[in-house]
């Protein structure tokens, strides 16, 4: 399958601050997750695709044409991260306004706005002013304006921010439907699990550099070489540690404070299922079970530590 989006040696500096550093990647049709902690360069990468930012070096191509290009922009839908916009307009007017800027006539833009607001679940609120919208409604409105003109490429910058669990599930379903329709969808997020619900294809940025790209589970597999940390809070950490020490999946145990036990394991799934069972068998109350490194920051830490080790 040919690449829809291409970055060739793209670097971007904001004065002395490095936004992107020599990024070369290709994005094919379907959903791609753009991952990275805050400040990794995700938004910069997206803005390079929308032409809002001109790379200091390198070039961005969409459908083989160099961005910025008005013809390409007609086929692009973009939902930025911002939350405050056009507060005096109603949601429907806001979306129709941007549809008109995409080249639709007034009546057509309005009809499309009504239809797309219905698709994102805002049919009852579309005639209310944007200033009265909740964060989740604003996210849906941004998605509506991004897909209203039937774009081939949809770029979504942190679309889950501010959504409640139900809203997140609906947004994930919407994004999945866009991918299933054959569009190229790039979704940026700093939460790995969210992206995992939508796609297996990811691009990972860290400090403006391309850290990893490809299938999510292949990348996770690399991370599984490192032990996972699981934090257990219990009033009897020594009793629980004694029970866990006999288990083969436990690599190390460490006490943190009076009521916390840190478990290191290379088989997190087995550990998660065994801990509640062992606690019950030994009569140890288990107050909390959390995974402090089950997030993207930990993934990055492992990857960057691995890279440093390799370099050394």
């Amino acid at each position, binding site marked *: *399958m*040919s690449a*829809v989006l291409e970055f060739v040696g793209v670097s971007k500096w*904001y*004065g002395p*601050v490095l*936004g992107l550093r020599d990024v070369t990647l290709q994005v094919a*049709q379907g959903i791609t997750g753009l991952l990275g902690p805050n400040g990794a360069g995700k938004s910069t990468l997206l*803005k390079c695709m*929308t*032409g*809002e*930012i*001109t790379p200091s070096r390198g070039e961005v191509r969409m*459908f*083989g*044409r160099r961005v910025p290009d*008005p*013809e*390409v*922009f*007609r*086929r*692009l839908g*973009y939902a*930025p*991260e*911002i939350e*405050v*916009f*056009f507060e*005096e*307009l109603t949601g429907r*007017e806001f979306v129709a*306004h*941007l549809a*008109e*800027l*995409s*080249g*639709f*006539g007034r009546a057509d833009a309005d009809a499309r706005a009504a239809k797309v607001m219905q698709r994102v679940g805002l049919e009852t609120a579309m005639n209310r*002013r944007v200033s009265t919208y909740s964060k989740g409604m604003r996210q849906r409105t941004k998605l509506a*304006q991004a897909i209203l*003109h*039937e774009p*081939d490429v949809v770029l979504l910058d942190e679309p889950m921010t501010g959504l409640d669990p139900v809203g997140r599930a609906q947004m994930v379903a919407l994004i999945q439907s866009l991918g*299933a*329709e*054959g*569009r*190229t969808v790039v979704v940026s997020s700093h939460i790995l699990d969210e992206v995992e619900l939508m796609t297996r294809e990811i691009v990972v940025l860290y400090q403006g550099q391309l850290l990893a790209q490809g299938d999510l589970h292949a990348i996770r597999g690399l991370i599984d070489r490192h032990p996972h940390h699981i934090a257990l809070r219990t009033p009897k950490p020594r009793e629980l540690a004694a029970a866990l020490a006999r288990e083969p999946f436990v690599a190390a145990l460490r006490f943190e404070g009076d009521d916390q036990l840190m478990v290191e394991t290379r088989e997190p799934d087995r550990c998660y299922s065994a801990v509640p069972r062992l606690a019950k068998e030994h009569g140890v109350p288990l107050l909390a079970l959390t995974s402090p490194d089950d997030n993207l920051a930990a993934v990055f830490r492992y990857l960057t530590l691995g890279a440093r080790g390799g370099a050394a």
Partner: protein
Amino acid sequence: MALPSPDRPTTTADPKSPAGVVHSLAYTRYAGARRSPAFAPLVIARYALMAQLRQRGVKVALLLGLVSLAVCAAILGAKWSLPTMAASAGFGELGGAGQLARAVRDGEADVLVWALRAQILPTFLLTLWCGAGAVSADLMAGAFQFHFSRPVSPGGYLAGRVVSASGWALCLSAVTLLVFSVERLAFQSTPLGAARALGLGAVAVLLELSSLAAVALGVSSLTRRKGLAQAMFAAIAFAGWVLCHSLGALLGKEWVKSLDLISCVDGVVAQLNHQSTLHGGAAFVPALAWLGWTAGALALAAWQLSRAEVNRG
């Protein structure tokens, strides 16, 4: 030039096949007509004007303008009716016909001057509200991301903002001018004289609004803080006026007084009315000052917009 389409699931559909039909659920890209990007400024302006009308400040300024129009129309009516009555009665040192002719000429000049004077405060407030904060608010909110990911150029955006910054003030001034011209026609003027006053008045209003809008947008493009941009615009208008008039009086140079943003338009209007006190090379100063303010501010705004990404970095 047609762009290549991305790969999509294909539709296998044969209506005659007894085995059935498989429909593609792939999206269909819009292939209909699209308007030219040249329409973008009008779209930006129309929606901005719609949004502005929902703001309390704009409503108040428009109401103030209508009140001012009513008061000034009454004053002008009284002013214009007295010489007419006096001339008709044959009073004064001039003969009735001469006095009437002078009154007609002065009355037509009044249309220009009063159309500007009547709306100076509402116009200033509307430009302050709709123009001086416009680009700042968009910079602060990051609204360029919506605009510039579409076929909208910074120049198109700026053109739309110029129209929206002066749109409501233009409506108010146009109504004022029309009312004064009709009123003038009702009292003494001929249709030709009233039309001339209307035409010259329109030129004066456009000159005033274009320079105000340009400067408002110029300062607005300098900062993301709407309040700061509005304060800077007010300072340029009023402090500039005070400074130029003080310097003019101090140096004894009349032309220095027409250098500021407000007075340069007054200077041009005085020339249109053949009432200017500037002669020789100094006669060009008001027009050059207007050109400098307008072109300079627009160039500043265009430059700032072209590097807006750096502002957001």
